């Protein structure tokens, strides 16, 4: 490009439509924007707003997929929609490189990471030797902060952690020194601390190489500190496009304001709702169901431990964790991946058997009970799972799925069960007529509501929610969290809320437990812990949460 003023990316009246069984779905509808050389643009919006579809069009990824693309897309002087196959291949990775979401599935599981990067390099530098390509792979892996890059280049994806895999994908994008990076939700699958590192890396790379960046994300907090301009998308159209500060400080559209409001914030205290005074735990009498009920202690874990595997390969996922859940309270459990929070949650509802310690439910030790003896407690201890897609049987209607625990309990007749399911659907904000519909007809947020309804069905006293919102976009996250809060207030259920996102947890929790390496490193009242974190690990977690204010500080 000789003309210095020509924009790096120029999109005019772009439309992308997917023909489906019942008509054409217009995912992107008349979108136009430009990106200056070296500029950084954030494309934000809820899921289904067309932001990823628009980003894919920049690399011509809709070609041969049956999608109907119209308008014009120019990237560094290349007309993407008109380009021949060879020109398009040269553009992909050579001029504009994509960083995909979900780093695990986006790398070839059978090949060494260094070889995969070298292959991309040799695709674009035909004259490069194998050796040169390998050296380049090591160089970019080193650049993105993979320690001991020459050796780790020989590792396969499963030997990398999630954060390292995301770094490897960024390294692959850098391999051929592209002029534009397109990052599609690059941090959605990651922990908050790793997310912060990846965002820092993207910022550094921009400064260092002057490459342009298009960041697609549902989380305004992620975009805020990383890009210069924001493009807000809704239903395939741009509703707002302005510098970051303008959008954050003076959002024009209601939709943008809603998106902003949905970003979980650390500095918002939990709204205290009226509820029964909970007596202190001091008077708890062990072994007596009556006594325990009197003090409001519902579930008590003491020195709970879980080891997987045997002998030298044994891994202790949870070690000596003691925890008390009182009736009707919410406990947040936070920590990075691998800190043992899911294992703990599964043990609390006895989906897993502890290998050590005691677990008392209303005074009775249920830690070692057999499945048959546990059945009496199953309806009182329920779980909401992380992935609303895989935790519902796709071949059963949602009504049937919700009815399952009721049928298992065997107390109600068929007509009563149907009535109760309809009532539950309504309770979680779904149409009671949805009984006979199937999971694929629902969005992620709606499916998670179904999961919550199923957990509520047998009238439990305790629900363990394992990352219930981490697979959802921010707007839906806020709605589901609000729903859980309401349910807890209305029904007096105790909640154990597991999450890696501290801001999300803050909105719902009375008390908080911070886990690291299978142990509790800090616990206390939520407000105290957020305002005066004692343990350096907690401080680190808090510092990593992306803030909208950061953009203001940086700008």
């Amino acid at each position, binding site marked *: 490009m000789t003309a210095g003023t020509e924009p790096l990316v120029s999109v005019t009246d772009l439309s992308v439509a997917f023909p489906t069984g019942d008509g054409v779905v217009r995912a992107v509808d008349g979108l136009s924007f430009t990106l200056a050389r070296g500029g950084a643009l954030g494309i934000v919006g809820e899921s289904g707003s067309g932001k990823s579809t628009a980003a894919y069009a920049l690399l011509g990824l809709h070609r041969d997929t049956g999608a109907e693309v119209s308008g014009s897309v120019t990237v560094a002087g290349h007309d993407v929609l008109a380009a021949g196959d060879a020109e398009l291949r040269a553009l992909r990775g050579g001029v504009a*490189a*994509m960083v*995909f979401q979900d780093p695990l599935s986006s790398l070839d599981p*059978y*090949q060494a990471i260094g070889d*995969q990067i070298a292959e991309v390099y040799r695709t674009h530098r035909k004259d490069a030797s194998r050796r040169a390509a390998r050296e380049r792979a090591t160089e970019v892996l080193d650049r993105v902060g993979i320690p001991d890059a020459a050796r780790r280049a020989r590792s396969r994806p*499963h030997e990398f952690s999630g954060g390292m895999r995301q770094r490897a994908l960024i390294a692959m994008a850098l391999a051929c020194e592209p002029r534009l990076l397109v990052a599609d939700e690059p941090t959605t699958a990651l922990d908050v601390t790793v997310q912060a590192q990846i965002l820092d890396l993207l910022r550094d790379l921009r400064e260092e190489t002057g490459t342009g960046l298009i960041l697609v994300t549902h989380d305004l907090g992620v975009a805020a500190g990383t890009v210069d301009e924001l493009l807000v998308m809704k239903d395939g159209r741009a509703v707002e496009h302005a510098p970051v500060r303008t959008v954050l400080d003076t959002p024009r559209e209601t939709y943008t304001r809603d998106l902003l409001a949905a970003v979980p914030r650390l500095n918002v205290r939990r709204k205290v709702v009226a509820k029964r005074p909970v007596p202190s735990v001091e008077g708890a009498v062990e072994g007596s169901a009556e006594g325990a009920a009197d003090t409001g202690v519902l579930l008590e874990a003491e020195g709970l431990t879980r080891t997987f595997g045997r002998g030298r390969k044994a891994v202790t996922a949870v070690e000596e964790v003691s925890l008390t859940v009182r009736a009707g309270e919410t406990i947040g459990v936070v920590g990075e991946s691998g800190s043992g929070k899911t294992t703990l949650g599964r043990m609390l509802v006895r989906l897993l058997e502890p290998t050590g310690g005691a677990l008392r439910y209303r005074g009775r030790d249920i830690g070692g009970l057999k499945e048959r003896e546990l059945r009496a407690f199953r309806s009182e201890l329920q779980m909401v799972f992380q992935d609303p897609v895989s935790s519902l049987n796709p071949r059963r209607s949602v009504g049937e799925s919700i009815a399952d625990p009721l049928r298992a309990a065997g107390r109600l007749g068929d007509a009563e069960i149907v009535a109760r399911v309809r009532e539950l659907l309504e309770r979680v904000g779904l149409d009671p007529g949805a009984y006979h519909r199937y999971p694929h007809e629902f969005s992620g947020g709606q499916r998670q509501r179904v999961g919550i309804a199923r957990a509520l069905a047998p009238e439990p006293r305790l629900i363990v929610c394992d990352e219930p919102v981490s697979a959802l976009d921010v707007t839906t996250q806020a709605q589901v969290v609000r729903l859980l809060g309401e349910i807890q207030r209305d029904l007096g259920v105790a909640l154990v809320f597991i999450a890696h996102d501290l801001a999300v947890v803050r909105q719902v929790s009375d008390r908080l437990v911070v886990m690291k390496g299978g142990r509790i490193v800090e616990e206390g009242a939520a407000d105290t812990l957020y305002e005066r974190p004692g343990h350096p690990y907690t401080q680190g977690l808090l510092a990593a949460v992306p803030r909208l204010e950061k953009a203001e500080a940086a700008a």
Partner: protein
Amino acid sequence: MTTYFLRRALGAVAVVLVLSAVVYVTFYVAPGDPARLACGPRCNTEQIRQVREQLSLDDPLLTQYWHFLQGVFTGQDYSTGTSVLHCDAPCFGLSYQNNQLVTDMLVDRLPATASLAVGAMAVWLAVGIGTGLLSALRRGGVTERALTWLTLAGTATPVFISGVALLMLFCVYLEWLPFPSYVPLTQDPEQWAWNMLLPWLALGLLESAKYARLTRSSLLETLAEDHIRTFRAYGVRERSLVARHALRGALAPVIALTAADFGSIFGGAMVTEVTFGLPGIGQLLVNATQKIDLPVVVAVVVITGTAVVIANIVADVLYAVADRRVALR
């Protein structure tokens, strides 16, 4: 690794023991008198009684089975009236029909069956995988539709039809090939191959239809995976995508199925063997079953079971080589 092979070997022994016990029980309770069949139609009651005694058919089931196990693990001596016939371990006893050592009968039959299995596998892998790849890469076109029809027709045609058709075409009508008669590989490799050609094609083509469909669906599934999209978005050619990134994952189920099929030919390819007059194990099994010749049937079942188990171990090892995430434990 050592523990893996040890564990699998023990598993194989257990499988074979269970199989042989099931066959014993089935034949014990099934109607029919092996002694009458062994003795022939002109025998009188007294002669049949003698044969029964000689074959120990009046012993309780457990005793008979115990004798069989002893033979397999330690060998056995048989008295033929005038002399003593020694049968080394693994000894599967004497055939009820002709007092031959079953082990010898199997050793005689094994080469033909093994020849059939290896050649047919080569045919179904080459034709099946080739067709599957082609129809996956040309999907939506005329090629794919034609191939789909061909593979469907292939699956639907039993060997006794396709085999006879092949014989008619190549041996009678075109006279390109002589009527197949088995020639051992050790005797004349060239004649062996010419004579085995039609059986290989008949059985291989029948199986290849299944492999084509499996390869096609497996490859299409792999091509839809995220990591393929990554390399497509980096300008890698479609051809390299398939060869370098998709094929390895797509062929994993093909390896597993091959192992099971290859193993089961050692005892299950009777239709092909009978159609082409191959002196193999399948043919032996058909005759032995009709004559309630228990020692032979049990021996064939044991051989088939062992072959399936060994083929599966080979498949496991191939899996582990192809995919480093798989550990042999």
